[in-house]
């Protein structure tokens, strides 16, 4: 709409407004990512230097990183996080796409009721059910196991809901060809629907992986065995042991933040686009 001559401003005024606009945006952006820059900066500083007000470390050192990695089993924590997040993501996408397909495409009695029941859990988040969930998982003997961390994290209505919406938007003709070929429902799902859902599955995979990598509350609650700690629990515990050693703590924070930031750098368009459309369409 700004391509057309504005009725209010002359051309030079419009350019000026745009310049001011861009400057404001740029300054805000710098302010917003400042804490992240600061974190990275401190992680390269020595202990005496940690509170000096310069962004660039006077004598950059890798010492904090090597200390953190050798003193604390951070590699183990990272491996645990990776295993848990990847497993949850794969299993969740598999189950959710099956359920989403059935709820969008297959006709069976009680379908609306099942959808309504699933929808009703959409806004119930983990914190509010943590106490009874812990008791159930304890009763199932899954405390301090990988299964205990992974299984309850798989199920959430959000993924089913989005996939169902997506399948509703697919044209029916696509399946009809397969039906005429005599393919069963499993075959339609596996070789027609799944390949068609690649874009949304990719977007959801990134979101699920990020959410599980960053998850703290459930892993903290269900696993007290240090060998099962994910990286978020590890770093929170690290804080209570090294509370004054900010240079170590920021180095540890940087290590924990790097995988998600790298994911973001690679997939920023997909991540941001999938959030932009989630829940609204």
């Amino acid at each position: 709409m700004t391509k057309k001559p504005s009725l209010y401003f002359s051309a030079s005024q419009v350019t000026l407004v745009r310049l001011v606009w861009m400057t404001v945006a740029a300054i805000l952006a710098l302010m917003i990512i400042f804490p992240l820059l600061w974190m990275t900066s401190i992680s390269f500083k020595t202990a005496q230097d940690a509170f000096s007000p310069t962004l660039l470390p006077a004598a950059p050192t890798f010492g904090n990183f090597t200390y953190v990695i050798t003193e604390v089993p951070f590699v183990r924590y990272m491996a645990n996080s990776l295993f848990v997040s990847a497993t949850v993501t794969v299993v969740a996408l598999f189950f959710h796409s099956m359920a989403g397909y059935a709820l969008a495409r297959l006709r069976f009695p009680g379908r609306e009721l099942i959808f309504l029941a699933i929808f009703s859990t959409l806004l119930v988040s983990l914190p509010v059910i943590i106490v009874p969930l812990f008791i159930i998982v304890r009763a199932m003997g899954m405390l301090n196991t990988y299964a205990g961390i992974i299984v309850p994290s798989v199920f959430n209505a959000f993924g089913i809901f989005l996939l169902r919406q997506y399948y509703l938007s697919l044209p029916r003709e696509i399946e009809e060809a397969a039906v005429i070929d005599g393919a069963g429902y499993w075959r339609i799902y596996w070789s027609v629907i799944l390949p068609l859902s690649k874009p949304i599955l990719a977007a959801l995979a990134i979101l699920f992986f990020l959410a599980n990598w960053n998850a703290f509350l459930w892993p903290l609650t269900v696993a007290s065995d240090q060998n099962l700690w994910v990286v978020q629990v590890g770093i929170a515990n690290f804080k209570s042991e090294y509370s004054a050693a900010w240079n170590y703590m920021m180095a540890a924070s940087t290590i924990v933040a790097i995988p998600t930031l790298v994911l973001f750098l690679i997939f920023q368009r997909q991540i941001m686009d999938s959030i932009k459309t989630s829940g609204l369409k």
Partner: protein
Amino acid sequence: MSSRTANAAQPRGEAFAGSEPLHGPMITTAKPKFKRSRISSRHQEWIAGYLFVLPDALGLLVFLGLPMLLSLVLGLYEVDGFGSYRFVGMANYAKMMSDRLFWQSAKVTALYAVMLVPLLYVCGLGLALLVQKTNRFNGFIRSMFFAPHMISLVVVALVWQFLVVDKIGVLTRLASALGFSGISLLGDPDFALFTVVAVSVWFLMGYYMLIFLGGLQDIPAMYYEAATMDGAGPFARFWYITLPLLKPTSFFVIMISMVAAVAGSQAFDIIWVMTSGGPANSTSVLIVYIYQQAFGFGAFGYAAAMSSILVISLMVLTGLMFLLTRGGRFNYD
């Protein structure tokens, strides 16, 4: 329709297919033989539907539905550290009514939500309007606005705690340079909750910016063109076009942020790491208090009773949303 349909998903389908021979491995690459089975294709669709929904439905039932129900039941029991249960009726709820810390936590939760929701709305929409036009520069700025949301809340809390360390933290020093010296942003009960809210906003506003950008995208450009032709300035356009047409998005944002604020989805991690509910319980939101009661003192029954209040209020909110959106459709038609 071949009976492989159902049997591929779960062997149970085979039983219904009757005379059908076993197909061996679940997914064979061989072309399915077109055979009429004994059950009608309609019933096959039913069975397939149930089997496809089964894994998720079962999982949601056990790990979400059951806990929701259990929080109501468990609240009627007293549970000791060894896992023995004793029925106490409404005693936990009675205890809640007279528990000063419960009311304090309820108050803090309400305050947190009342501050967070409008702030997120304004900041999210403000950022979205700032970078609304799609071009390279704005794409870059958007990524920077959104970057904090990529970091785990534990790290977010650690980094911010470092920024606001008394006397020597960067932000504390900035504050004293601006004339607010001697302020303890996390140590002073008057400020700690504001700090937690600020950190939550910093973490969440990029996310809501994206939701708003999605909503702004859906407003047809011709409305703005027509309004400009009629002589509407930028503020009139915002007030008479953007805001009304953004109603579905606004509704979604307010709903989601309210639920997250009440449940403490972000607040728990931030508060647990930064303040553990202190100082003087000034940042003790309900979920933090519940967690301490359950996993600190082993008072699972009492904690469940308090959780049930949260569950019920969230169910009411969800029901309201479902009614207002006619089944989760966030648009007009």
